[in-house]
């Protein structure tokens, strides 16, 4: 009797196992073809320049690369922080209040999700370019045309424009899940509206900040279309990779820069995640 049961169990286990392997096959093929092989090739190409492996080091030692790298990180970080602030205030308001036109407003706010970077760049030029709205207005008011579309500030504005919708939707979903009782409890204990935000609401939204902030950061690190539309000489990493690759035909450097860009974005995401986990656990 016992022997029979055992055999039966083993047979079921075996077939189940091979079934799982079969299901893993598409994942394995896709991972190898689209991720492992090109990535490995990229890493190898990066070390095939005249400097060899030191080509990677050049990202940090060569002043032009280093400045671009710092520029990109600062820009992405600033975009993330400002996006989070705007999206949190706006998202909280939109989730907590019902007013006529709310649905239209939310639809409008999420509109940029549909635009490619090129269109976003075009919109920034329409707003702050040489024939832009801000330039026209400042010209009439102060007799001076304010134009910043083609600078890093224009790029910052463009990144904000497409980061806010992504973050706002995540924040709104998180606010919806907040237990209103928590805020009421804090108030009953004497907490002012500011204290309630500081001690209860913001800590509860922490995971949403990390998740959406990470996406905003990674997107801003690698966005190319907007930068390309605004100007070909803004110093951000994706532009540098493009010029090294197409204009200078410097395959090794552009590969090394690509690997560097990917590594930094990934590392900062990982760091943000573990950091937020740490603060959540140590809060209070």
């Amino acid at each position, binding site marked *: 009797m016992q022997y029979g049961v055992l055999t039966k169990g083993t047979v079921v286990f075996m077939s189940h196992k091979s079934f799982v392997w079969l299901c893993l096959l598409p994942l394995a093929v896709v991972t190898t073809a689209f991720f492992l092989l090109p990535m490995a090739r990229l890493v190898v190409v990066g070390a095939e320049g005249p400097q060899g492996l030191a080509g990677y080091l050049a990202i940090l030692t060569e002043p032009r690369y280093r400045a671009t790298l710092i520029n990109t990180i600062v820009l992405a970080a600033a975009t993330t922080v400002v996006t989070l602030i705007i999206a949190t205030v706006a998202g909280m308001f939109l989730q907590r209040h019902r007013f006529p036109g709310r649905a239209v407003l939310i639809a409008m706010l999420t509109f940029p999700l549909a635009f490619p970077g090129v269109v976003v760049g075009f919109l920034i030029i329409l707003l702050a370019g040489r024939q832009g709205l801000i330039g026209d207005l400042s010209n009439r008011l102060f007799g001076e045309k304010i134009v910043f579309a083609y600078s890093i500030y224009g790029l910052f504005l463009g990144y904000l424009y497409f980061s806010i919708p992504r973050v706002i939707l995540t924040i709104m979903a998180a606010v919806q899940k907040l237990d209103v009782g928590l805020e*009421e*409890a804090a108030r009953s*204990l004497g907490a002012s509206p500011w204290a309630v935000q500081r001690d209860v609401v913001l*800590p509860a939204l922490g995971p949403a900040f990390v998740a959406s902030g990470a996406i905003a950061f990674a997107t801003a690190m690698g966005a190319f279309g907007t930068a390309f539309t605004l100007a070909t000489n803004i110093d951000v990493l994706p532009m540098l990779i493009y010029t090294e690759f197409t204009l200078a035909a410097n395959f090794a450097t552009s590969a090394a820069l690509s690997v560097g860009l990917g590594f930094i974005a990934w590392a900062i995401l990982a760091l943000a995640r573990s950091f937020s986990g740490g603060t959540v656990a140590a*809060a209070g």
Partner: protein
Amino acid sequence: MNVIGDHGASVRVETCGKTFVDGTRALEPATLDIARGETLVLLGPSGCGKTTMLRIIAGLELPDVGGKVLFDGKDMTSVPIEKRNVGMVFQSYALFPNMTVADNIGYGLKIRGVGKHERASRVAELVALTNITGLENRRITQLSGGQRQRVALARAVAIRPGILLLDEPLTALDAALRDRLRGELNRLLRALGITTIYVTHDQAEAMELGDRVVVMQKGVIAQVGTPREIYFEPNSRFVAEFIGAANIIEAPVENGQLLLPGGRQPIGGDANLTTAVAMIRPETIGIVAAGSAPLSGTIDSVSFIGDRQRMIIGGASSKIIAVDAPNTITAKAGERVGLLIAPDAVRLLPPGN
């Protein structure tokens, strides 16, 4: 045990009604007085307006125009909850998940600027009082339901509130734990001597905890009284049926006796009545031999519960009559028995609802 001290406030709710933005009337204008140190229970089925009343007293809802909330005679109607000095326990407990047990309990003190040292000693007092010693540094997610309930209570009383407000604090717990915590909560509330307003839909909780009970139905106060008054002298059919088990009998009256299919039942009160709605509690009916009581019926079923047995009697009245008989009687289904009911155990209710 003088952790709270004597600083309960008296509460007066004056013609407070509540109509929500969408037009639903949650509470008809009602007036209530709650004495210093009293425990008042708001009791009723869901949607009766009890939670709305509590939230108006807390300051989480504004009453409709004309309504007023007074603490110790002082008008608090437009004072926001954070300035009312009320302790509140929520049904979901609403404990802060980003803080430890000790930080939760000490939060109100921290907000009030109480120093770290004093805060710690006060938290320690409350931890001991609510029997959660050893859990101070736990996270909220590591606590059981009963432990969370205690932390929520400790947090609410830590600020020495003038009034303690509890919104169904035991509803989220399983039955056995609920019974145990009910007794514990009762002792604690008595020891604290604080003015307490307690919302529940559970009549057993209301009976045990309340100095007075306010029975509510559809936004209206149906009756206010001590647990005994509410139980023995309900003023309406709704209250009679909501509190405990009740046999409601509608029958014609002749010479001070209910005329029933199974005989006659003498009643007290006005001799000129022609019809009556009578309430008889199951435990006030005696089972005797058929013929030795003016009223008799046939046993439909017997459920042995342990400390007593519930018998369902048919044929005595137009509806079945429930009787809680002593557990020693050995009558069986199908037997004909007499029902002995003292006239003063029959409570006449106003006709209708």
